[in-house]
């Protein structure tokens, strides 16, 4: 219970420290939805769906950004020293950061789903499928953040983003080319394909096992990130 509390404190602290980018992301959802509603929604309903999909992609991009820079920023600013001097294990600290990114992604997906219900459902988009798509986006965000966090334990944000892109992109290309079991290995492509192919007429594509695979693989990456993180020197400067 104490450990859970510590993880929660770290997660909330992450949200607090990243409040401005999170707020910008949330406001972009609200702003673009408002713009969509102000336009002639009936004739531009495809435009609204495209904007909705575009925002979903932003969510994934921000998750990579959050995950990739979380540890680096703390180390560079040396704030990590005061935190890690307390009774918290490195793995719990990492769990807190991932939970923080997950909460930020969760808030984003909830707001996107909420505004999507408001903007898309009156135009004929399935309410249940819309929230199913949100689950796909959330799973993609968590998976992307876990990959980025894994690399950020030992790389700077740029390198971390590059390796995250490669790690998520290569299985995507293989899944696109060969399909089969490739679509369950770091299944960002599978999840986002479902999201991006959704339409008013044919909303019913299923992500199949990709959602479950994403969560399981995110957990494995969290474990691997912890394994690396407990072995590295977190104090930046050589004396």
């Amino acid at each position, binding site marked *: 219970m104490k450990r859970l509390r510590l993880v929660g404190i770290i997660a909330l*602290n992450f949200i*607090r420290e990243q409040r401005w980018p999170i707020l910008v992301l949330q406001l972009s959802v609200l702003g673009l939805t408002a713009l969509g509603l102000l336009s002639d929604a009936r004739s531009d309903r495809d435009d609204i769906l495209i904007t909705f999909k575009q925002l979903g992609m932003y969510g994934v991009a921000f998750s990579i950004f959050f995950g990739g820079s979380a540890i680096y920023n703390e180390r560079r*600013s*040396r704030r990590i*020293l*005061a*935190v*890690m001097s307390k009774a918290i294990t490195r793995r719990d600290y990492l769990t807190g950061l991932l939970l923080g990114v997950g909460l930020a992604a969760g808030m984003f997906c909830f707001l996107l789903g909420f505004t999507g219900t408001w903007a898309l459902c009156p135009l004929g988009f399935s309410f249940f499928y819309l929230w199913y798509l949100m689950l796909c986006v959330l799973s993609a965000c968590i998976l992307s953040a876990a990959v980025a966090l894994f690399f950020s334990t030992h790389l700077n944000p740029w390198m971390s983003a590059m390796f995250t892109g490669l790690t998520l992109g290569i299985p995507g290309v293989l899944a696109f080319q060969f399909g089969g079991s490739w679509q369950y290995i770091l299944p960002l492509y599978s999840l986002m394909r479902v999201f991006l192919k959704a339409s008013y007429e044919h909303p019913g594509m299923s992500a199949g096992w990709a959602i479950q695979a994403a969560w399981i693989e995110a957990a494995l990456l969290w474990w691997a990130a912890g394994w690396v993180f407990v072995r590295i020197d977190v104090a930046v400067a050589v004396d």
Partner: protein
Amino acid sequence: MPAVLEFQDIIKDYRAIFRRRTVRALDHFTLQVEEGEIFGFLGPNGAGKTTAIHLAMGFVQPTRGRGLMFGKRFGHAATRRKVGFLAENVALYHRPAEKLVRFYGALNGLSGEKLSSRTKAALAVVNLTHESTRNVSKFSRGMLQRIGLAQAIVHDPDLLILDEPTSALDPLARYAVREMLLDWRRRGKTIFLSSHLLSEVELVCDRIAVLNQGRLVRLGRPADLLESHATFEVVASGVRPEAFAGAEVQPGGRIRVQVSKQDQRALIEQIWLAGGQIMSVTGHKRSLEDLFLELTGGNVESSTQGTR
């Protein structure tokens, strides 16, 4: 007394990825800090002091050797609940002082009423109660150091590890911190203090260690270390100066010779045998600064024999 902090033959090398050059920050470093003492940790910049502290806190891993804190390996998270740490050039989150101290207190397992009362007490100790609602981003460097100290003591730790805690403080605040450290010792707490302020270390520390180029070069009680390095000035008359090495001729035909404590008796006997008269013998206790400069300024002979 049981050891609170133990470094056992630790080597710490830093090596950057893609670079062959290795920097040895600590070289066979062995040290024990005992319960209830204020331990001064001295050394020039780059001597390895901060690395040793970071090892103790579990921020970095030793290349070889091992260390124990309260009998547990360095880096054991639950043990850190008994430890308060203030880093050199402390970096903290930007939020109101009281909320900040609460945050760090909560990370050490405090909650509810205990967290509130300990937060207020810690702010009072560092004299920041009146600034508790002000954001620390607007604090001066000295105030930041004080709030850093507050986060280190909020959970009433048994061991305080302080890396340059008074470097940015004015004399008044420095005095207050010194009094706090002495009070802490009276309550049976242990303090591991790294500082460049030698006069301060001399005033409060029970034992000191001097580190140079990653090696422990001196360890002991300040009084013992300074006494062993004490010199005596002997002024005599009626003797030829050339008979005494290093003799300085003074007006009136007197000579002045400086000798160590061990050589004092032999010199006086030599003057008497030569038919001279002793005019005065004056003892010069060396300052910690003299000792520090001697140990770290030139070719320092490593002597870890006194290591406990």
